[in-house]
């Protein structure tokens, strides 16, 4: 159980526990008619499901802060729908379901270090490094010389992720990707070197 908060603690980014789920305050406005009571209007996002809703609190309302913790974990392997990680300081291994891994599934390669978010001791999500390097496992041959036109083609990465890249990218190239946008950044290594 997290510490008890009052409405005056509310601000953007504060994490609350509501009906057993962690919520983060994504939008916040203090309002108070001159002689009336203070109202704290919040937009809340469920940190597990991503759903949002609006709620207005009064100064007498109390909440539990969501008991959140973050640990560095190393990705080990996948077994069916479960993903296995190891805590880099305690070496404890933790399995996380595909649902909680979410979009990060496209960028997970063995030994990648990630930040794992825990709610009341339960792993609920991971944060990737902003950039990862992945190998292209399948690409149609490109058209030589056409690097400036901005034309792109789809290629498959080692994780199965399909992404649009410039035409000169070939199978076996290693690419740097931005995990926040999912977009191609640059080629790190060519298959020919």
């Amino acid at each position, binding site marked *: 159980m997290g510490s008890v908060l009052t409405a*005056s603690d509310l601000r953007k980014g504060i994490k609350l526990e509501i009906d057993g789920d962690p919520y983060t305050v994504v939008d916040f*406005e*203090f*309002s*108070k*008619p*001159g*002689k*009336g*009571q*203070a*109202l704290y*209007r919040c937009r809340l996002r469920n940190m597990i499901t991503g759903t949002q809703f609006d709620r*207005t609190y*009064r*100064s*007498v309302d109390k909440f539990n802060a969501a008991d959140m913790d973050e640990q560095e974990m190393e990705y080990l392997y996948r077994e069916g729908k479960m993903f296995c990680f190891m805590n880099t300081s305690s070496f404890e291994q933790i399995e996380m379901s595909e649902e909680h891994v979410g979009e990060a599934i496209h960028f997970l390669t063995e030994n990648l270090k990630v930040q794992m978010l825990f709610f009341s001791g339960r792993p609920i999500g991971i944060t990737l490094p902003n950039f990862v390097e992945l190998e292209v496992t399948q690409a149609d041959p490109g058209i030589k010389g056409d690097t400036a036109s901005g034309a792109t083609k789809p290629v498959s990465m080692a994780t199965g992720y399909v992404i649009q890249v410039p035409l000169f990218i070939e199978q076996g190239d290693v690419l740097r990707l931005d995990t926040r946008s999912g977009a191609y950044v640059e080629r790190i290594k060519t298959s020919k070197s």
Partner: protein
Amino acid sequence: MTSLAQLAAKKANLQARCRIIQLIRRFFHARDFLEVRTPVRTRAPAPEPYIDAIPSAGWFLAPSPELYMKRLLAAGYQKIFQIAPAFRWNETGRLHHSEFTLLEWYRADADHEALQQDCIELITEISVGLDQFPLISFQGHTLSVAGRWPRITVAEAFERWAGWCPGPDPDQQRFDLDLVTHVEPRLGFPTPGFLTDYPAGQAALARLKPGFPDVAERFELYWAGIELANGFSELTDPREQRRRFQDTLERRRMAGCSVYPLPEAFLDALRHLDRAAGIALGVDRLVAIFANASDLDQVVAFPPHRD
């Protein structure tokens, strides 16, 4: 912390602020108002259900200068004004600062309607003085000071926009929530407007409307959905005022809020106060509108929550 770059970026807004304060002074001096100064620290602030005073070495920082202003009125001063710092605990937001600037003015032998006329003339003069007459651009809205400034009663506004009639002592939570979400956002476009005839239960120091005891002669001035000023005809019955203060203090005690001593000097002075009316206007908010600033931080050099 407010950085030097942030301070430098506020220069145009601080210049507008300076000019507005000059224009306010010019307005009241031209009408023979006496500018006064009253204490920032006070032993006994006016008890209000939802305004918390900030403690200061056993006393309090004044949440408003009103009780001192009314003691001056009771002593025979006819027209007084003050531009004063005011302090309120735990009020921080886009349009709230825990330390802010209030303009208060009082007229002896006048009622709330005289104050409404003052509001119209004051804000019109400011817009002329700033070369922003009659149209003012504010956050995507074109506001105006010209034309009729509408008046709507609390009962009419709630029936129209919130779908219910508050009556003399509405449930405070429902009232405040609907006021903030449904009523305030409609008020004061394009000209400022007055929300009048507040429920009798929501007027700590206001006189009830003669012949209509369900409502008080209290109004709020709104512009672009922003509450700018609260004015009323003063309650001048010391016994009734004492009873209201005691009720409020008892409610605060029950709710676990801080309680203050009864302002005896003010209650005593009230015996000598005849008909009078007074109003408090948020100077920072008025500057924000004329400076087209989205929040108070931009029109105050050092916002109190940032140091």
